[in-house]
């Protein structure tokens, strides 16, 4: 027997579930981008949760209503609501429909074809990756068959990538998604793990790193005086560099993810990250989760101009432009000297953490390039990764083949010499040609057309629409050829 209060609670649950069902119907009716098959799996999960809740709220001889059944219904409804919230922004009205397929392909090609991952856009100036564990559903009793089926159809953990929407959904910025993918690859299965390759490289360079770490400790001691505890400072420093556990990213993982994005998209990630990071923050202060922006840009710039991947030379050769570290981010503040940084951090995070944060760049200046090199070696030595690398040769060919046409109003859609056997242009091609056109040749965009007299904002938008069209049509071409 349920009490009066429990009856009232059951009524509330029914009302709640009824409204969730309506919300679910409305979300289901939306159009999701091609390639978002994972969204259907999430919708099936919501449906399964709601069916379980509805069943638990329908008393029968075998299922008498009790406080436990009401609680179960609430649990299911809560999870369903949470999932619907997670999915906000994943339909075509918020998310650029054409860009989803190539991003999805990065994940399926480099992580796992079965990986259940979906993209959504949010009105934020940030990119984020989030994993949702199966464990959330393990406590649900008497699951509906639909819920059981939906849970088993997902390759856990369910992964969601957030990209900005509206004004900040600038197509070439989407190379930052390759950075988010970098996190997943970094933590990949042990056999393929870049994390172990990075750690091996760090061990191989231990003597150099130890010297830097000693300097870091001296810096901390200078500022902490009698409060200095070498073991504690070292522990905090290592936690920031390597992450608190396997689940949270450390500075090294962030740098590795940048380097993975570089391998996949070449100069595009340097331009995108420089632009985005300058926009997000005017401050040179950083956090425990991310290394200083200035250093991230520096490491990418070093990769860009390295002898092995001489994109800088390629840009100079094709465009006659000097490529500098602040190429498109002159407003990004340089890193202050570490004593000033300590003072700036102290008010925010206390003296102990301030000593660690302000001193760690000494170590990362040494480890960052090692991390980057280990990632590049990993990409070059494994065919699965190598075929996704965006090389300076590709970049040079792309500039040769596509830059002039783009400026004349022809988007990069196909590639090849034989008219009857053309292939779809690569996403990285469109991102890079797009960046170069936007940054270096905007004044040459459709010079005879009405656009030539437009303000730069409108002209950029016109070029941007062309790039979006390129992605849409190259993806259609690819899918058509593959089916």
């Amino acid at each position: 027997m349920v009490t009066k209060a429990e009856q009232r609670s059951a009524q509330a649950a029914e009302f709640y579930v009824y409204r969730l069902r309506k919300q679910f119907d409305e979300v289901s009716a939306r159009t999701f981008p091609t390639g978002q098959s994972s969204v259907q799996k999430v919708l099936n999960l919501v449906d399964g949760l709601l069916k379980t809740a509805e069943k638990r709220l329908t008393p029968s001889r075998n299922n008498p209503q009790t406080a436990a059944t009401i609680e179960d219904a609430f649990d299911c409804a809560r999870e369903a609501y949470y999932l619907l919230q997670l999915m906000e922004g994943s339909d075509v009205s918020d998310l650029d429909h054409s860009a989803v397929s190539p991003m999805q392909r990065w994940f399926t090609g480099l992580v796992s074809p079965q990986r259940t991952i979906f993209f959504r856009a949010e009105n934020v100036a940030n990119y984020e990756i989030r994993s949702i564990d199966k464990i959330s559903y393990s406590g649900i009793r008497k699951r509906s068959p639909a819920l059981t089926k939906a849970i088993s159809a997902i390759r856990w953990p369910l992964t969601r990538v957030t990209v900005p929407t509206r004004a900040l959904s600038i197509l070439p910025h989407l190379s930052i998604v390759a950075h988010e993918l970098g996190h997943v690859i970094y933590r990949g299965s042990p056999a393929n793990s870049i994390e172990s390759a990075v750690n091996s490289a760090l061990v191989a360079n231990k003597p150099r790193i130890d010297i830097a770490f000693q300097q870091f400790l001296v810096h901390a001691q200078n500022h902490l005086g009698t409060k200095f505890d070498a073991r504690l400072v070292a522990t905090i420093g290592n936690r920031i560099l390597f992450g608190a556990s396997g689940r949270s990213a450390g500075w090294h993982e962030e740098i590795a993810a940048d380097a993975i994005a570089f391998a996949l998209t070449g100069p595009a990630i340097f331009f995108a990250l420089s632009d985005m990071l300058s926009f997000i923050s005017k401050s040179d202060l950083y956090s425990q989760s991310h290394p200083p922006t200035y250093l991230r840009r520096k490491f990418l710039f070093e990769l860009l101009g390295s002898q092995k991947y001489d994109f800088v030379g390629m840009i100079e050769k094709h465009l006659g432009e000097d490529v500098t570290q602040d190429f498109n981010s002159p407003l990004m503040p340089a890193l202050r000297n570490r004593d000033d940084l300590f003072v700036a951090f102290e008010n925010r995070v206390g003296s102990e953490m301030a000593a660690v944060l302000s001193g760690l760049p000494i170590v990362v200046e040494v480890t960052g390039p090692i991390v980057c090199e280990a990632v590049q070696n990993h990409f070059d030595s494994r065919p699965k990764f190598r075929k996704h690398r965006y090389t300076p040769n590709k970049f040079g060919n792309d500039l040769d083949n596509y830059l002039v046409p783009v400026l004349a109003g022809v988007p990069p859609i196909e590639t090849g010499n034989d008219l009857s056997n053309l292939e779809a242009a690569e996403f990285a091609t469109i991102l890079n040609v797009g960046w170069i056109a936007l940054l270096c040749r905007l004044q040459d965009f459709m010079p005879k057309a009405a656009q030539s007299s437009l303000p730069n904002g409108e002209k950029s938008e016109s070029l941007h629409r062309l790039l979006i069209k390129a992605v849409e049509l190259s993806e259609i071409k690819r899918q058509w050829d593959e089916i």
Partner: protein
Amino acid sequence: MGSSTMKQNVPSASNNWSKAGVLSGVEVKKRLSLEDENRLVISPILEMHEQIRDDQASVDVRLGSQFVLTQPSALGEINEFSEFHYLADNRLYQELYIPIGRNIVIHPHQFLLATTLEYIRLPQDLMCYVVGRSTWGRLGLIIATAIGVHPGFSGTLTLELRNLGETPLRLFPGQTIAQLFFHGVETDENSRQSTSQYPAAVELFPKRISSQTTKKKIGRFIEANQTDKHP
């Protein structure tokens, strides 16, 4: 497109291209292969042998994924001479993206805007006509009312679809929807150089009805007329 992409510094391939006349399938393919400013761009052509036949004089184009439904609103009328002309007001339109594999139904007497799947760029010595395919015509589907495309145009072609039949028609992006007939335009070098290109058109919304001069002059007539009536 690879080495077949238009190169800026390559001189014009031939002066014979601009002979007026409708291009055959063979001529169209030659134009697609050029690497200079006379190159014709139609991209992507998903099935070359089906869309361009050597013995025919047209190129089949497909229905794209972008659609715009016009919808009733409580706004005033569209009047380009009014301060609030509503011409490209998105309250009058509903944009839809229908991926390949999905579909949209056009009901009897319904009007909607669509695009070709192919991106097109016409050189300065070619224009083209957009003509509906006869099969669709027999079903009552009219695909375009503005059928001439001028030299220098670049973009996807906007199709103004209207179902004049009595039966709803289910349309699938990727279906061949229209055909393009390419026609040479006699130009001399001077007029070619001074001819403005059309911008890279990938949006479906109408932008303007009259040219600036026409709009200004009719505007003056309207003003004078109003002054006469209300001295």
